[in-house]
């Protein structure tokens, strides 16, 4: 078997020398990305349950005064640390490390280190700005609420840094292709590259918002900004960010999970089609977050509904491909009947269990997402607790649990230390699953009673709270119960994660579980036997032209945004900033 290609087996004429020391350097940097990302989650996940308790009428904030001034400060930290810092660090590590190991090519370490350094500088800036309560503007930072320059510059650095894996990937792919002309891009590399190309395009929106408006505004160089143009630019990035959260999890589901369960990926082409569709459809639809905003035409709202529904296609295809790959493994393992194959999967492996449970929560996440995209239904749920209910069973479960699952094999792989407790790891996955499901059911249900999202309702007088939200007391109790379980789950996870890094018993590092697909090669490594593209269909060869896909996506995005931004650009509002917290 040549699944695991040690970097030191590479031929010496490679463009980037791959010695043992270089391999160790890669592992160390990958571990740094992982530890930094999960440290951000530790901060964010510690605050989260306070917000769940808030909805049940429990106001813990007065007791936390020296640390947190308000619910809104805590919520800002929760959103930024979990949504940006955690996901960006883990993703920017994974999407370089996995392709590098898949192809057996060393990444540009200087660039990868720079990616880490820029994002770390950004994270420190936003932490400072949020910590002193100067920027309690929430993770969406809609102007004309005005935070400190450290906040906006920090977010700018985080956004720019998070696109830096793109040139690293392109360079590695080019080196691989020079040695293997005429072959299609290896699967994990293809998925990582389309993710980063999508994100590189998507980032244009928020970087324009920050660099042209909010950075100079917060520094006092310009006096006013236009609220609705900036909101539109935010969602130009803010919708695709959902896929920047989701696609790295899909990389693990398609690229690794089938092997972890002892089977194969049933369709390599469907994985590529899924990623190409995710890239194309995720960009033009951001304005569906603004169905409740005035200013752009109803025709465009209708077109956005159609485009938004289309985004569901790749995720539903994923449900099929991953589901069937799991069934294949389950039947190989002796599972019989309609559900026996599912029970026969290796549930004792915490990495498998966490990903399977994450996939189950995505049924609720995807279904509520279709509700959000459905215009009139959106009017009922917009900015109610339904929305955070929805995205906690996407980013809060699919992404967070899959990243935890990855850490369960990757920390031993990187450090050569065994998990301190497989049972505690399993416990954390199950508890996170149950807690997040209860939380999400409670939040979506309460949203139907009009309970607004991100509101410090526990600070209201008792009678007012009951008059406004008393009818939602059952779902709001579920929210609180889910939050408390998530507290338990996250500390169980962090005990395993940090415990393994610090105290795990030495063991032989396990290999990366790269999956093999039906009819696919055993390895894509640069020194493995040739794998002529003859096996690939014309469609798959066409999808390998990633710049063509990028061009189509860019054109579709421009076509979607010109009519939306046009009236705004012709009626600019000059709004001064407000600091209201």
């Amino acid at each position, binding site marked *: 078997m040549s699944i695991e290609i040690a970097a030191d087996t590479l031929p010496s004429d490679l463009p980037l020398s791959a010695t043992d020391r270089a391999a160790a350097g890669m592992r160390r940097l990958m571990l740094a990305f992982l530890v930094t990302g999960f440290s951000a989650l530790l901060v964010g996940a510690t605050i989260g349950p306070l917000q769940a308790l808030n909805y049940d009428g429990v106001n813990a904030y007065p007791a936390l005064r020296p640390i947190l001034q308000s619910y809104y400060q805590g919520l800002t930290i929760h959103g930024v640390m979990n949504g940006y810092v955690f996901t960006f660090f883990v993703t920017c590590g994974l999407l370089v490390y996995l392709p590098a190991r898949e192809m057996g090519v060393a990444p540009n370490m200087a660039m990868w280190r720079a990616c880490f350094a820029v994002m770390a500088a950004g994270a420190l800036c936003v932490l400072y700005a949020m910590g002193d309560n100067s920027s309690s503007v929430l993770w969406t930072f809609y102007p004309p*609420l005005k935070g400190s320059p450290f906040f906006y510059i920090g977010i700018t650095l985080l956004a720019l840094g998070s696109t830096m894996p793109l040139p690293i990937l392109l360079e590695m792919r080019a080196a691989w292709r020079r040695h293997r002309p005429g072959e299609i891009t290896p699967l994990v590399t293809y998925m990582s590259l389309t993710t980063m190309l999508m994100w590189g395009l998507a980032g244009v929106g928020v970087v324009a918002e920050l660099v042209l408006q909010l950075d100079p505004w917060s520094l006092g160089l310009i006096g006013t900004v236009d609220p609705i143009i900036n*909101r539109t630019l935010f969602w130009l990035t803010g919708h695709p960010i959902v896929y920047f959260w989701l696609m790295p999890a899909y990389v693990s589901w398609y690229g690794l999970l089938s092997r972890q369960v002892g089977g194969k990926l049933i*369709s390599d082409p469907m994985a590529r089609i899924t990623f190409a569709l995710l890239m194309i459809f995720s960009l033009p639809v951001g304005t569906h977050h*603004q169905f409740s905003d005035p200013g752009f035409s109803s025709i465009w709202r209708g077109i956005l*509904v159609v485009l938004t529904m289309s985004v569901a296609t790749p995720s*539903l295809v994923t449900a099929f491909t991953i589901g069937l790959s799991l069934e*294949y493994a389950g039947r190989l393992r002796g599972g019989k009947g309609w559900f026996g194959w599912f029970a026969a999967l290796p549930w004792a492996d915490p990495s498998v269990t966490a990903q399977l449970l994450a996939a189950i929560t995505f049924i609720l996440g995807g279904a509520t997402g279709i509700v959000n995209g459905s215009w*009139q239904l959106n009017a009922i749920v917009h900015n109610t607790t339904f929305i955070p209910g929805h995205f906690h069973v996407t980013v809060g479960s699919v992404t967070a649990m899959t990243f935890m699952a990855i850490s369960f094999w990757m920390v031993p792989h990187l450090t050569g230390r065994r998990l301190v407790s497989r049972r505690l790891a399993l416990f954390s996955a199950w508890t996170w699953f149950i807690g997040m499901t209860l939380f999400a059911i409670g939040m979506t249900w309460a949203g139907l009673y009009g309970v607004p999202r991100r509101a410090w309702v526990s600070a209201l007088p008792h009678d007012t709270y009951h008059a406004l939200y008393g009818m939602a007391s059952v779902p709001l109790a579920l929210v609180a119960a889910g939050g408390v379980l998530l507290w338990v789950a996250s500390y169980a996870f962090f005990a395993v994660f940090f415990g393994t890094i610090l105290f795990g018993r030495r063991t032989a590092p396990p290999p990366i579980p790269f999956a093999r697909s039906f009819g696919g090669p055993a390895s894509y490594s640069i020194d493995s036997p040739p794998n002529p593209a003859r096996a690939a269909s014309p469609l798959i060869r066409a999808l390998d032209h990633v710049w063509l896909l990028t061009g189509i996506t860019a054109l579709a995005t421009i076509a979607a945004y010109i009519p939306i931004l046009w009236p705004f650009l012709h009626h600019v509002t*000059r709004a*001064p900033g407000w600091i209201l917290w």
Partner: protein
Amino acid sequence: MDNHSGMSPFEAAFHASAERHERFWIFGVLVMLVLLTIGTMFYVVHDYGLVTGTRSYATDPQAPAREAPFQDGKVVRTGPNAYAVYMVGRAWHWAPDVIHVPQGAEITFYVTSADVLHGFEIQGTPVNLTAVPGVVGTVKYTFRHAGLFRIICNEYCGMFHHAMVARIIVDPAGTP
């Protein structure tokens, strides 16, 4: 080792079956999404009044809030069974903060903000409109039931966002 080593009989059979079912699945997915799209579009067109509209834009973010109808805060009768309501969001209250409208009448809400973004949500209805400084958005709604409704700000606007609540009292039809 050959990269394309032969499949086992089970693997080959599973692969063939997978490809057949894959087509069915994708067809089913596309049909479902088309039906959902048609359904949601039909609902919107059928019930078109709820679509967010735009009355005007201003360069000065506070200009709309200074207009007479917004200053007066009165419910204006615009037709035999039609009324207009002018609502300004300010951190952290709605003006006017109590209004009476008749049951069964078509109400057009004109909503703006005098400072930051606010969210104009009437609890228990699908009325949901972002209040944007400098922009006057509109939405039409007919209250079919009499009683007390609450306007809840659902877009974060600062320290007392959660307390930004106003009331709409829908008077039973037939009362003067």
